[in-house]
């Protein structure tokens, strides 16, 4: 086996170990104290004595789905971030600069405003978010096709305009809505990992893993893209096809994650940059690493969000923003993040 492969496998193993440790921490710690003897007993045994049922429920029906969701959302956001940065060859792009998240936001706001979530079912919330994201994708595509799809700056500009447009629409909807809905919208906008419906969690977990596999198939093409469009063409890369496939893929991933957990910022920006600094620029390892570390990062942030002022809880977006921002500024000033 060549040396690079060995090195990459080592990096992945280290990240998996970190992820497991982080997950165990998040599983063990929380507002409710869990007896550590019981904790290990629950992990290895199926038969639960009746008097420990509440502890068991907290662990497996509140904390576990939350850890799974935190992992998946973190993994999805940072994977989409790194793919978009590669496609646009712009280090400042993430899920929120492309307008996809904005579209999802408008979808969810409309839902809350028209009370579909109360009248029909709470399930309409993620569905409307996803539909909003897809609507945004289609609009961006239609405009981009009229122009020149080849030119990524066009798509980027359309995306930025679109995200401004949708944030204005959200503000408009907020200002005309009643107070109770306003709270719901604002709470959603801040992002939260309270979705404990296993069905949604499985859907997004499976989709994001498929997303990882698909993007990995294109990892060498993404590497080639970093050399510029013309050099990539001369390496036999079908640029337009790759941009279409991966842009659609990230739109689906972002749409799903935003519709389930709202706008959680900074993960798609900080994790890819941090990893580039640590392990380099090769997308073969960068994609997998962003997936694993993005997940681990959000698990930690969620652990902090729900323990630091317990029994109350901070919005996760606040924690990712603060931690992400501090780390980013530190790296940027100390060790040269290259933008």
């Amino acid at each position, binding site marked *: 086996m060549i040396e*690079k492969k060995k090195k990459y496998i080592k990096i992945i193993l280290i990240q998996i170990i970190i992820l497991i440790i982080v997950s165990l921490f998040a599983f063990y710690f929380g507002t409710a104290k869990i007896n550590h003897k019981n904790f290990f007993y629950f992990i290895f045994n199926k038969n639960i004595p009746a008097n420990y049922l509440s502890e068991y429920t907290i662990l497996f029906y509140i904390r576990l789905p939350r850890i799974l969701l935190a992992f998946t959302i973190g993994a999805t956001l940072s994977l989409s971030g790194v793919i978009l940065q590669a496609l646009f060859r712009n280090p400042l792009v993430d899920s929120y600069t492309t307008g996809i998240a904005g579209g999802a936001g408008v979808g969810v706001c409309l839902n809350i405003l028209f009370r579909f979530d109360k009248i029909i079912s709470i399930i309409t919330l993620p569905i409307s978010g996803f539909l909003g994201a897809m609507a945004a994708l289609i609009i961006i595509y239609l405009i981009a096709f009229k122009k020149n799809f080849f030119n990524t700056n066009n798509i980027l500009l359309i995306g930025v305009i679109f995200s401004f447009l949708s944030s204005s629409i959200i503000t408009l909807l907020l200002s005309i809505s009643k107070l109770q809905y306003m709270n719901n919208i604002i709470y959603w906008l801040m992002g939260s990992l309270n979705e404990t419906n296993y069905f949604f969690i499985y859907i997004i977990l499976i989709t994001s893993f498929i997303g990882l596999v698909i993007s990995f198939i294109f990892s060498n093409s993404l590497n080639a893209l970093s050399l510029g469009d013309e050099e990539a063409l001369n*390496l036999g890369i079908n640029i337009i096809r790759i941009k279409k496939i991966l842009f659609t893929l990230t739109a689906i991933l972002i749409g799903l994650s935003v519709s389930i957990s709202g706008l959680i910022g900074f993960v798609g920006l900080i994790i890819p940059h941090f990893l580039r600094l640590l392990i*380099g620029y090769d997308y073969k390892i960068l994609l997998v690493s962003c997936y694993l570390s993005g997940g681990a990062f959000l698990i930690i942030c969620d652990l902090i969000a729900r323990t630091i002022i317990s029994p109350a809880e901070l919005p996760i977006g606040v924690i990712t923003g603060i931690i992400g921002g501090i780390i980013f500024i530190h790296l940027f000033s100390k060790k040269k993040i290259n933008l």
Partner: protein
Amino acid sequence: MKKILELKNVTAGYENYFYISEINFSIFKKDYIGIIGPNGAGKTTLFKTILKIIKPIKGEIFFNEQNIYKIPNNEFVKNISVVSTNIETQFFSVEDYVLFGRIPHFKKFQFFETKKDLEIINYYMELTGIKKLKNKKINEISSGEKQLTAITRALVQEPKLLLLDESTAHLDLNHQLHILSLLKKLRDELNLTIMITFHNLNLAAEFCDKIILLKEGKILKIGLPDETITNENIRQLYNINVLIEKNKITKKPNILFIPDEK
């Protein structure tokens, strides 16, 4: 002699500007062709048309007697490669950057380079003399070394035809001479055919077997340095007066510039 590239009546360009029109020429295996013309004469457009980046509006291009648009893309890029003028990525190591040139040779679902790929890139890095730089980052090496790295990257594609667009333009004389003679050596050792654009007429005359003069998107003249680098042609091309002598050692045309004194 084997015809490697043939352009038949090719017209191409972007919407309404920077065009080349009715270009006809053939080049043969192991030719070392220099392309000369003022800024905007269509040198880069010509290359982009050959590389299938710009589709011709009229005419056809043949590589090894096959229309280039009939050659599957993955075959095409194994045959023609281009040396980029500046390397856009900064943070890959020289070795990793050169390795990108092997991507066209990767099999479907092959993600990592094989031992053979590594042997090939080592061979070419040795040939171009950049092996000692292989662990350095692209942003840590000089512009001359970058150019050598870009050439190596193009060579590991193992092309038959190598295109260089003003690759030596911003290098000092020493590096220019080094790269141009290296190309000559590569041509001989690897049976390469080389097309390179120039601004320096003397260097073109010195190194190239044949020269193509481009003016306003058309071929003004094509032929040996003696036939193309003449007073009359240079006046037509650049609207300047020059004195042409022979290089005493190489017997190639050598241009002396006469400043306009008005």
